[in-house]
């Protein structure tokens, strides 16, 4: 197993026999960012897993998430540019529900499954935070 020696603020030497590499780390234990060999990992210190890939923030786009709340929320802080649905409306998978805007880009929020819109939890122009569902489906 490699030895890790701190050599400066946030900077570490990883020593494995005569092999040495420089690594960097910062952030809280539940999501510690590590840079090693040009790659970046966000690691939960207790489990040793990459939270960006396996944790709650690791949702990948394309409706593959089992967690509907995440599919229906902003992926990053964003402004609500348009709301395309109203309560009671029936939607099909992939239907455009909300258009968000952040960093000069439009970010669509699409229906992860078929269903009826129960509620819309945002207003046009509102700044919304990630992880909070913007539309409720039933």
């Amino acid at each position, binding site marked *: *197993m*490699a030895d*890790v020696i*701190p050599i400066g*603020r*946030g900077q*570490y030497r*990883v020593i*494995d026999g005569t092999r040495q*590499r*420089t*690594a*960097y*780390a*910062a*952030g*809280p*234990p539940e999501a*510690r*960012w*590590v*840079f*090693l*060999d*040009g*790659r*970046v*990992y966000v*690691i939960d*210190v207790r489990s*040793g*897993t*990459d939270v*960006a*890939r396996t944790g709650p923030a690791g949702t*990948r*786009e394309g409706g593959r998430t089992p967690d509907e709340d995440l599919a229906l929320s902003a*992926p*990053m*802080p*964003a402004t609500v540019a348009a709301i395309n649905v109203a309560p009671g409306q029936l939607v099909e998978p992939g239907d455009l529900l909300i258009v968000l805007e*952040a*960093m*000069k*880009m439009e*970010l669509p929020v699409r229906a992860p499954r078929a269903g009826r819109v129960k509620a819309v939890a945002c207003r046009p122009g509102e700044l919304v935070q990630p992880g909070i569902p913007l539309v409720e489906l039933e």
Partner: protein
Amino acid sequence: MFRSILIANRGEIAVRVIRACRELGIESIAVYSDADDRALHVALADRAVRIGPAPAAQSYLSGEAILQAARETGAEAIHPGYGFLAESHAFAASCAGAGLAFIGPPSGVIARMGSKTAARALAEQAGVPVVPGATPSDQRDETIAAAACRLGFPVVVKPSEGGGGIGMKTVPEEASLLPAIAQARREAAAAFGDGTLYVERLIDRPRHVEIQVVGDHHGRIVHLFERECSLQRRHQKIVEEAPSPAVTPALRARMGGAAVALARAAGYRNCGTVEFLLDGSGDEARFYFLEMNTRLQVEHPVTEQTTGVDLVRTQIVVAAGGPLPWTQDELRQRGHAIEVRVYAEDPERHDLPQAGPLLLYREPSMPGVRVDGGVAEGGDVSVHYDPLVAKLIAWGDTRDLARRRALAALRSYPILGVRTNGPFLIALLEHPRFIAGQLDTGLVEAERPVLLAGLAGAPPPEAVAVARHASVDAAAHDPNGPAVIDPWTLLRGWRG
């Protein structure tokens, strides 16, 4: 020469202009929104003026707020950078009206070259090749079909008032032409309220090659050779280089000559870029005028590194009425430069922009490497603006040396707290097609699965060990705070 210049921009380009001002002994005046009061460009400038709240429309895009700041500070000139107001002819005109030098071309030139149709007409007039195409005045389906047949297949049928690819149809052969015209017309009418169609020959998998030009107020216009900008995602460049692996000396001379002819026809002053689509490579390649960018380009450093010319300094000298210090024959390209754009975005999530704190940010420093950055450790990438963090430029005697230097630098460039495309850029620079110089504008999308495959995978045990070690080490610090004390943070309130 100007005594002071107000920089109507933020981020790395504002920092770049501030540095040029400092060299020339010119007072630099930064402007900033509420989201940027701790930004690097504000800390580095000689003076700084708040111009409004975070949204760009009320700050960096507000010509009125910027002119007000210029009046308050007695600025003599305004450098617009790129983006924001850089290509606003109205803003350039207001600067002139307020007695300020606008560091860019005249307002009328910006307006003319900003109109796709006017620019295309001027290019044709100047003898610069344009992509063969037509908007038939008789808009019946049969007439459009006949125009398409004259161009030769494949063709693209698209709304004449349009954009964003809406209603755009690629037609491989005559048999599928009429249905495509009908569908394009329906979509054009629905989207733009105007069913007028334009047909154009399809240039299959072109390269994007552009020519840097610069003109002074004494009638001299020169070009500073080409930049290859074929590697794009979502129509945005991510890797640029000079020279282009596809351009031969004879082709370079033809393209450079065409760009200068167009600039001359436009009455161009200051720095500008003529963008071309390149079909094929070598002496026989054909090139077609795409558009002219009437400002400094993001990728200007690859030209600077291969010509030894400081383009920002040149912009300032020319705007102050000075002559260009070199003739065309005195300009030379030497070696090779590659720029990669480091964006706060997640390549594994469709390049979704990322915002957040820069917990740790250390720019690499090594031979043949330049970093034009706009951030510092302890700062953040704001949700309000473009997610460009920095540009890393590597140069060397050969293309492969420049490539290897860029790779070594990216592997020594930790950015923690915000996900960036750094690992994706490493994969791109290692891709066999990049190594071979076989570039086209579709490469990044076509090879995306291959490029992403290298990014997947659980963290190696060494990375986990570092994470756990850091846990002990960081216990004394605020776990949510930056890993180190940042000098700019300490400067907070220094203006007060």
